[in-house]
């Protein structure tokens, strides 16, 4: 079954691993320190490894289709608050550090075999959200660039 690395690819503008999703996918209550992200059937790539994803023209193995079948994330439990006004990054905003959980199902359909995959197809079903471990999480409201 091997390694798997799902991501949204690199945009022509060099935005890394970002996909547009329907409005309403994310909800934020900054005062409460909580937020949620719910997605279904998001088309992504399986690059198998991060290195293979980011090597661009030098990529040894082609990307294949992947699907985030369902994703549910929750942020809650405010730990601290902070504000930012960063001239170097042209960013300012207010942020709440908290903890997050994730529950996800993702699939790589059958493909031609590659050096990184037998092509059998693969599905990952995560354990319940309560078993995920949050290393760092935050939500916030910010403005950068032209809105700084």
């Amino acid at each position, binding site marked *: *079954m*091997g*390694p*798997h*690395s*799902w*991501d*949204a690819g690199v*945009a*022509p*503008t060099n*935005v*890394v*691993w*970002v*996909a547009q999703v329907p409005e309403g*996918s*994310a909800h934020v209550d*900054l005062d409460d320190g909580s*937020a949620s992200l719910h997605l279904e059937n998001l088309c992504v790539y399986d690059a*198998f*490894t*991060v*290195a293979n994803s*980011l*090597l661009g023209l030098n990529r040894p193995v082609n990307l294949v289709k992947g699907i*985030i079948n369902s994703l549910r*994330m929750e942020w809650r439990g405010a730990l601290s608050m902070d504000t*930012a006004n*960063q001239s*170097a*990054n*042209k960013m300012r905003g207010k*942020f709440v550090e908290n903890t*997050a959980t*994730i529950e*996800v199902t993702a699939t790589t*359909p059958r493909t031609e075999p590659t050096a990184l995959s037998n092509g*059998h*197809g*693969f*599905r*990952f*079903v*995560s*354990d319940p959200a309560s078993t*995920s471990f*949050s*290393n*760092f*999480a*935050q*939500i*916030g*409201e*910010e403005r*950068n*660039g*032209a*809105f700084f």
Partner: protein
Amino acid sequence: MKSIMSASGLAGLSRRSFFRHAATASGGVLLGSALPSKASADDAESPCGSHGICDFPLPIPHINTPPPGGAHIYFPGPVNGGPTPFDPCTGAPVDPSGVHLEGRDPSLIFNFKGFIGQADLCLSGTGTDLTTGAHAPYQFHTDMRFMHGVFVGTDLVERKGSFVFV
């Protein structure tokens, strides 16, 4: 979302460990970003009709170190740029590139105004071979984010949008 361990012992590089081990040096060129004037065409169709080319967001200026091809991203961490906790599933700090005196911008996209969510997580579950039906426990590491608000894209038009970093 990157697998870091399976029962078969095959391990993919996590996003963090890849950056940590990537030895590619960069010229460190940060091109100055000319701030676009904000046009007001919230729901305008892109005149070139090629979604993702003419109306896609631009990246934040920051390029991570080391940049494998130039990744415009800060690792997760406090916006004040301070140190990050140890990540047990990768065996490294959440931000292995260290502290950032200039601060961190959790957004991936520039000329953006709105809400963000960011989470660096370890998760476990079951992987299934869709041909043989074989199962194995898998562990994944992920840095997931969302950005919901308005942005100015390559065409200098301001639009509403919701994005996820996967």
